[in-house]
């Protein structure tokens, strides 16, 4: 019961903050919509997408990149909430969370789930606008992607949490955005199918196959068509577990990562 109250408190705060920060919400929506409306429209002619699972007919490029853009929304949200964690720690409110008497791993997971729920709200808002714009997606898919969204949110959130545990200052974070977000997004199947990448460069295709974000995108892509991709889901779950374990280790008081950061501030 105590755990549930605490958990709900953390989630509720994250949702309140999300509602208050309208700018962040708008930015989270504009980013994928710009890709969808401007980028995809330009590429529609240049790039034919052959039939490949889970698609059963020829599809427009706009339809192809929807799962990738969903992943993008969640990737940015995951990184942003860890950015806010770096910021929170500088401002001290991460300390407020960590002096709670409940186990630290539990607190971090609560924070992670809260961030994931926020990202899911963003994804559905994005899908709504995309539908209004005229993108046709299977109706069942809206519900079927929910578990996939949850897993993806946990994976990118754990990555953000891990990064936040050893990034000392906000300035360093901008670098991580460049070295984490962009490579993860571009070197994946979000924008082009792997077979298409392979035509261009077998090396890039290989990297994309190893990129866990590719598997998150594929998991969402299959779920959108009410199909379950075992391989992709397994890889996402395993990656999340490893990243989360490392993040909890990073915030473990005995490991002293926090000490390294705070002792130098004095």
């Amino acid at each position, binding site marked *: 019961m105590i755990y549930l109250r605490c958990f709900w408190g953390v989630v509720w705060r994250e949702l309140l903050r999300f509602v208050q920060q309208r700018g962040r919400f708008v930015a989270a929506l504009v980013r994928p919509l710009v890709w969808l409306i401007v980028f995809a429209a330009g590429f529609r002619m240049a790039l034919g997408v052959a039939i490949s699972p889970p698609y059963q007919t020829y599809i427009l490029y706009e339809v192809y990149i929807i799962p990738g853009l969903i992943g993008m929304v969640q990737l940015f949200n995951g990184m942003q909430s860890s950015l806010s964690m770096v910021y929170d720690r500088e401002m001290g409110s991460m300390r407020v969370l960590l002096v709670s008497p409940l186990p630290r791993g539990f607190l971090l997971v609560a924070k992670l789930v809260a961030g994931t729920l926020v990202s899911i709200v963003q994804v559905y808002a994005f899908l709504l606008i995309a539908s209004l714009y005229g993108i046709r997606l299977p109706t069942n898919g809206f519900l079927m992607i929910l578990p996939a969204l949850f897993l993806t949110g946990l994976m990118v959130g754990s990555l953000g949490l891990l990064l936040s545990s050893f990034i000392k200052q906000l300035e360093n974070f901008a670098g991580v955005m460049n070295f984490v977000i962009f490579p993860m997004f571009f070197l994946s199947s979000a924008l082009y199918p792997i077979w298409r990448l392979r035509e261009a460069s077998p090396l890039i295709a290989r990297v994309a196959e190893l990129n866990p974000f590719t598997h998150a995108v594929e998991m969402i892509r299959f779920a959108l068509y009410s199909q379950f991709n075992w391989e992709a889901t397994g890889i996402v779950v395993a990656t999340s577990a490893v990243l989360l374990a490392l993040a909890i280790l990073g915030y473990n008081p005995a490991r002293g990562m926090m*000490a390294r950061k705070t002792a130098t501030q004095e």
Partner: protein
Amino acid sequence: MAGPVDDPRSVCAEGHRPAPAALEIAGLSFSYSGRPVLDGIGLAIARGEFVVLLGPNGAGKTTLFSLVTRLYDRRVGSIAIDGHDVRSEPRAALARLGVVFQQPTLDLDLTVGQNLAYHAALHGMPGRLANERIAEKLDRVGMAGRLRDRVRTLSGGQRRRVEIARALIHAPRLLLLDEPTVGLDIRSRRDLVTHVHRLAAEDGVAVLWATHLIDEVHDGDTVVVLDRGRIKAHGSVAAVTAEARVASIAAAFEALTGMAA
């Protein structure tokens, strides 16, 4: 020169069970990449005692607080809050601890009530009890009418008072304040110091108040002078002043740390 530290276990072994100290630190050392930040700290704070931890910037005050709050605990020595060891019983220890951090930690866009409810949730308090306590503690710091106001609309001194109310919601035995008057004007600073002194006297909460500002010491306080990671003096204002053979606590601080207060 540090105050005598009784080992609570030896007291128990004799069959007596006096109330444990609100805070009991023994043989605490911490170093950061080979450089000692805290060196052999021993300190006991009784219930309801108001202890001012005086030290120049860089003395190790914030590090000491980070260890007591278990932000990290790679260190030598022991720390117990109300008889509960911070390392072996972190949940019991942290449940008895209230903290006001040096940096402001309220969400500016949320209301006073939302900020306090979040804290109550972190302590797993049921909603009704939380609401009662929030009303009570806000009233206690003279902020009763501000429950629904956004924190952003409050002054610096008011925000600090909300943070103090927040630290008291779960009825801790020990209240830590890390330079809580930083950034406040003279009047808010004086009000806050007086206010927390009154809280300690009336509620019996032990207070550890870190500062480098000598005028925040009241005559009845216990003073601990920390300098370069070591305790240089510990005792009542009168005792520390007499031991340093000077006329005032300010002069004692200057003599002990080589710094003008």
